[in-house]
């Protein structure tokens, strides 16, 4: 029994140690903003634009597909049932609560972790293994400025933008499905949805985008930059970055529902 408790204690201590290092990494990354040199801002801005192109622009097709299919499946499988019990008005509530507020942000974040989180870890781990990070520091360039901050801000802006896109496409998909399966007019559908959509939903979406984007920027970057042994560790780092990012996103989503959504 004592051995079991000791093992749990050791595991917890290790986990807390890792969380502490991650928190320190995040703090140092954000604190480095104040020391970003003027000339460095222009270079970092170019890296940021590249990150936006990769994370946001190139993910538009995937987000449209995910969102369109999800809303189509949701509406097509529920509207007939709602019609039977005379509760087709609830379609608006369903769209707003299930898709706009919860599934939209979550699925967008999962898609961005899958596309960009993995790429960030793999890229930074490769930079580390090839000695590029050490070389940057050796020539007076802060890796936080050149590698980490553009990726964090790129992920935050991309996730917020893609979440808004996801929600817009989902609502449009719902509009098409509602017309197709229930014969509901466009005006009625939009009226129902807009009546259920509150300012809080919009603010929550942006807030989640901010949180999830920060998580997707920080955790994969941390896992990439802490690779030590060599190229064989890169796949493990990618797995750690992906799993920890997804875990953190799900935990945050649950906390938001528990604390902010009543």
């Amino acid at each position: 029994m004592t051995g079991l408790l000791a093992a749990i204690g050791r595991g917890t201590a290790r986990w807390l140690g890792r969380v502490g290092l991650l928190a320190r990494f995040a703090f140092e990354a954000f604190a480095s903003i104040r020391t970003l040199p003027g000339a460095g801002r222009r270079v970092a801005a170019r890296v940021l634009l590249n990150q936006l192109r990769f994370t946001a622009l190139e993910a538009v097709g995937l987000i449209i597909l995910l969102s369109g299919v999800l809303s189509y499946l949701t509406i097509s499988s529920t509207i007939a049932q709602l019609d039977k019990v005379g509760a087709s008005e609830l379609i608006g509530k369903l769209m707003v609560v299930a898709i706009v507020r919860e599934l939209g942000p979550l699925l967008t974040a999962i898609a961005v972790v899958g596309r960009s989180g993995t790429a960030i870890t793999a890229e930074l781990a490769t930079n580390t293994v090839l000695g590029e990070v050490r070389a940057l520091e050796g020539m007076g360039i802060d890796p936080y400025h050149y590698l980490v901050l553009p990726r964090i801000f790129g992920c935050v802006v991309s996730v917020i933008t893609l979440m808004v896109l996801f929600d817009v496409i989902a609502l449009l998909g719902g509009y098409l499905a509602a017309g197709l399966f229930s014969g509901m007019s466009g005006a009625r559908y939009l009226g129902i949805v807009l009546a259920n959509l509150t300012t809080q939903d919009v603010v929550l979406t942006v807030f989640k985008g901010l949180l999830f984007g920060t998580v997707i920027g920080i955790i994969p970057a941390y896992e990439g930059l802490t690779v030590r042994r060599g190229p064989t560790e890169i796949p493990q780092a990618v797995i750690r970055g992906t799993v920890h990012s997804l875990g953190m996103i799900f935990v945050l989503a649950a906390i938001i529902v528990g604390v902010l959504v009543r």
Partner: protein
Amino acid sequence: MTPLVAFLEVGVSRAARTTMSSLPVVSTEPDTMLTLEVAPHQTVAVLGDETSGVDALGGLALGLERPLTGRVLTLGTEIATLERSAQLAFRRRVGYLPAGDGLMQNLTLRDNIRLPLRFGSDFRPREIEGRVDVIVAQLRLTRVADLRPAQANAEDRRRAALGRALAFDPELVVLEEPFDGLTDRAAAELLEAARGGETAEGARRTVFLTGPDLPALLRPRVDRTVRMARGRVEEVR
């Protein structure tokens, strides 16, 4: 004359290097004590195999790692004790060619040379381009300057890495394993470029280099050679 690099009773070990200087490093016991001064205008080589701890010296000179014991002064300053932003600013005064060249793989050789100037100087774009053009021509990289490191051969990559180290025309250059895998002729050209020509006092730049060995052709061009092995430090020349 004040030495440009001074290792004062520095404990050296084969400790795992940090990936970023602010991230934690596993500390180990020192197995070699080193006291060494690199005078201005000199070319000093410290040689030793990978078990000697010689590969840690470049990082110690640049403050990328803290010594386990003792002090390292570079241009009269203990870089490792400075605040992080001051450390970074200070390192721009020293040219650094890391082991394995450390070129950014997503940039062309020209962009790699341009990077420290664009990030760490207030030069106008035209001034930067002028300076980069001169370095590219001096190091005979014109033909390959627009290739990425993976498309260039080892010699050109090393030249580009040296070009990047010389971008600010520093008075001190730290080279880690600079001649690894190069022909004697290429190594000699690289060393001459690092020295930056001759003055009455010696080479225009002070060069501190580390590595496993020195090509025979270069030995006359090196003012001091120190060898580290099995916890001992010997002055070879």
